């Protein structure tokens, strides 16, 4: 999957881990996945659907999603974008070619919705702390 990487906020997570003894993993994962959704939706809105009728594949826009939560070297994150099946098409759309104009959708979506994503994460963590 290619696209945007959303990481948790280290300082906030340290504080939350100190206050919560159990369930922190679940809250963290849920917050990351929920925070990725508005960015994925914005990406979809910024891409035109082609008129190709895919039989064995699918439209790139239908393939944009938030991944499951991945943990690497102690850091949890989600990837937002298309799967390997169609991400190569997204690359050409994002940057354009000599014959076709670009349809930037990854970078603009991130900048348009990053504030909302952080807000969702903060609300999820607050909800978790109140429980």
């Amino acid at each position: 999957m290619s696209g945007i990487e959303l990481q948790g906020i280290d300082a906030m997570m340290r504080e939350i881990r100190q206050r919560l003894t159990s369930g922190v993993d679940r809250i963290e994962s849920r917050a990351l996945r929920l925070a990725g959704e508005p960015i994925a939706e914005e990406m979809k809105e910024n891409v035109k659907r082609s008129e190709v009728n895919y039989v064995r594949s699918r439209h790139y826009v239908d393939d944009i999603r938030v991944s499951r939560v991945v943990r690497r070297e102690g850091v949890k994150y989600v990837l937002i974008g298309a799967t390997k099946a169609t991400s190569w098409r997204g690359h050409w759309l994002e940057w354009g070619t000599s014959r076709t104009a670009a349809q930037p959708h990854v970078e603009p979506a991130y900048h348009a919705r990053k504030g909302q994503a952080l807000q969702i994460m903060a609300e999820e963590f607050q909800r978790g702390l109140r429980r």
Partner: protein
Amino acid sequence: MITDVKTTVRAALIANAALIGLLGGPRIYQFKAPNASEQPRIDFFEVVNRDSEFADNQSIGSEIVVQISIFSLGSTSAIAGEVDRTMKSLGYFRTSAVDQFESDSSLFHKAMRYRTNIQEFYL
């Protein structure tokens, strides 16, 4: 809203004599060149132009992202260097750059994105 981004960028690129020399003329087009096989050339467009700073509930700044694409059958490095110099002289900084190769046309494509924040004051 800043509405003269494309005019300013194109004028600055055309004023760079070294760049025009490398391109073999003012082959700088907004969004898409009329002839897709013309090379070397530059296509450019605004990726983002949005309100970025606020005071008294009013926008006082614009965040702008411009993509500059270089298409060439040969190396894009010298052209990219001149583009970079020009964009930085305008107050932009480079946020990303990718190299692509189009196998059907054998064109190398170097795409670079530049960002700036321009403050607008309304008195």
